[in-house]
């Protein structure tokens, strides 16, 4: 209340100029309210030059109203907020697309590894069925017991 009393022009300016951020705050139901940061941040960027004009010039309600009634200034402020909305809307799909590309690249990489494995180890490596060892149990004996006897 004290702030309203002491700097009513600032409050008036901010209230009307930051309307997009306020709207974002209201419509964003998520707990993080990223849209408020996004829209509000850039919205404040648009307001800040006029806010400093107000603070360094006549700090009156009429000066604030002048700013708010100036089409150029409103266009600038709301464009900044709109840019914020645009970022908020555009970036997630972009990130999604990037993640999809990364996943596909990973799948391709894994497929290459699988092809290499099949080339080296045969089709069995893909659908491996436990087979009995092709080696008979006993026939190892000649090499086992006679490493030095079996003619080289």
């Amino acid at each position, binding site marked *: 209340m004290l702030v309203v009393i002491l700097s009513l022009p600032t409050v008036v300016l901010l209230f009307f100029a930051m309307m997009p951020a306020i709207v974002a705050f209201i419509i964003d139901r998520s707990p993080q309210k990223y849209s408020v940061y996004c829209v509000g941040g850039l919205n404040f960027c648009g307001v800040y030059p006029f806010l400093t004009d107000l603070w360094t010039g006549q700090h009156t309600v009429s000066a604030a109203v002048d700013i708010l009634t100036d089409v150029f200034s409103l266009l600038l402020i709301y464009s900044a907020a709109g840019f914020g909305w645009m970022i908020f809307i555009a970036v997630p799909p972009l990130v999604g697309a990037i993640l999809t590309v990364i996943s596909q690249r990973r799948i391709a990489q894994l497929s290459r590894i699988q092809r290499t494995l099949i080339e080296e180890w045969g089709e069995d490596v893909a659908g491996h069925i436990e087979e009995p060892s092709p080696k008979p149990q006993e026939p190892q004996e000649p090499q086992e017991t006679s490493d030095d006897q*079996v003619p080289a």
Partner: protein
Amino acid sequence: MAETTESQANGVPAQEAPGGAPASAAPAANTAFVPGGPVLLDERYQIEPSRPVPDFDMPSAPAFHVEDRRDTGRHLLASICNPGLPPRAEVMPQLKGGHVKGIVPLVEWGPVDWPTLGERCMAVIYERPAGGRLAPNFSADGANFTELEIRGLIVEPIAATLRRLESRDLAHRSIRPNNLFFMDEARQDLVLGDAVTCPPGFDQPLIFETIERGMASQGGRGEGGASEDLYALGVSLVFLILGRNPLERLSEDALLAVKAEQGTFAALCSRERIPTPFIELLRGLTSDDALERWDLERLENWITGTRMTPVQRKPIAKSADELLFDGREHFTPRTLAHAFGQNTTEALPVVKEGRLDHWIRRSMGNGKLADLVSEAIKDIQGPDPSAPCDDDLLITKICSLLDPLGPVRYRGFAFMPDGFGPALALEILRRGEAQIPIEAVLRDIPALWFAAQRSLQLGPGVVEGSFARQRANFQSPEIGYGIERCLYELNPGLPCQSQLVIQDYVADVEDLLPALNDAANRVDGKTSPIDRHIAAFIAARMEQDTSAYLAALADSDPKTSSVGLLSILALLQWRLNTGPVFNLTSWVGGLLGPAISSYHSRTTRRALEREIPRLIRQGSLADIYDFIDNREKRRADENGFSDAVAQYEATNVEIERIESSDAARAETAETIGQQISAMSSVLITLIVITILVLVETY
């Protein structure tokens, strides 16, 4: 040949032995002689096919002159075995080098390329008896031998020889007048002739065989023992004393009937004048009861003049009335059993219609035997006489009851249990199949024989155990078992019958690889070098247990079977120290595709394929096996394959995870996008305000 001709002229029907051998193998009598170049055995003994020595022919093995290249003064001869008969290979080493005095010294033996037959045959080299045969014509002029000479010149040396044979657990089984020789020109040193060129008793005319062994098929007369040799000696002495065959006009069946109905001694001597000192000897030696027959100790006592209790004459159980069967009148169960065994079909009505029971009970007066027969019929046929039953088994059992000491009789096939091996071999070699012997063993027919024995003389445990093992072999369809395994286990001298090596006469396993090495040039490279005969031959002749190798060889997976094939051949080469076998190695190398592909790693397979030609050039199967089935290599391959499988599975899991996470990824992308946009916005704000402050300040 001379022996054959003369003996036929002498009316001894059993001298038809060579005719009974396979048609392809009748070198003694039937093969027109074609002179050929000398044949060399062991690079030393030069056998000359152009110089036959008919004076020393055996019924199944003609004799030829031999030159010893290292000792040209030596007088030798070679008996060329009939390739269709399994020689007694297990006896040869024991007779080699004259180790058993009193038998014509056996010098060497081995397969040779015999030009007149165009195939390889077993040649047995003997020292040539300088004094020739004792009796070339199955008899001798009795006037030439005094009683003292018969005792000192014939009986004494033969008794000593039989004693030596008995100490080695051997039986000669070919004692007959024309198989006795004098080693010296003075005709004083009598020796027994050849005993190894055919199965035991095969060449013996029927009259020299005991009744029970005479009733068996020619190849199934069995090893026997000293008792059979003493019987043959007794009959031979009758021939020598009389100077002729007293029963020469009788056919084989009539001869068996006379011996069975009258007893051998009575049949031979009852109408002859036998010198008194020999009567007890001949009665003892030719006794038809094996328990009463003289043994060597009693023979030696007779030689030394020790008084002995005379052999009690036991009357032969005969029927009051004859039983007419198969065109012959039968008075004893033994002859009837023999006839039943030969004609099963005709025997059935006699058994089933009660004529047999009536004959045994009324004519024989043997109620106990009749009861046993009735019981056997009931067991097999059941209470209803018209019901169908196992006729073959019925006749076999009836035969074993009628003649428990006789041979095992089954569907016309008769064999003594210890003669099953040669009998089986002859069936296969003559007919190309052995359905009846196989069936007999599978149905455990010999067990009936053992059960019916009143007096076992064959060491039934060992023989019965052998039948149990052979039954297991018959029942196994796998390579390395079956009838082929039985054939080689029961006939140690039989050469391998595989078509790949049959022309090489491979009797010893040591000769198998060289023979296969030669065969490699003749056969299609895709043919396996181990067929059923070769696998069974290896398994039967190798001392080492080969069951694991055979199991690998028989595996349905070609990868395992090709490793098994290589392993068993490598084992042979390694164990037997066979030299390089280049052709065989090349042959086997061409069949190793599946073995190489048993490795999972392509790199390893390529390395093997690159290296194998080099190993093939060395001719060492053991090296190839060591290289192909190297344990370290195999383990590394298995480990690598396991790792590869694990890696493949891991990649699969990851791919599936990625592919199944589209929704989550979209959500993540949304959150991250919002965070990025919020952060970007804040950052831009801070930068812009900072710039503005700086601009306004400066």
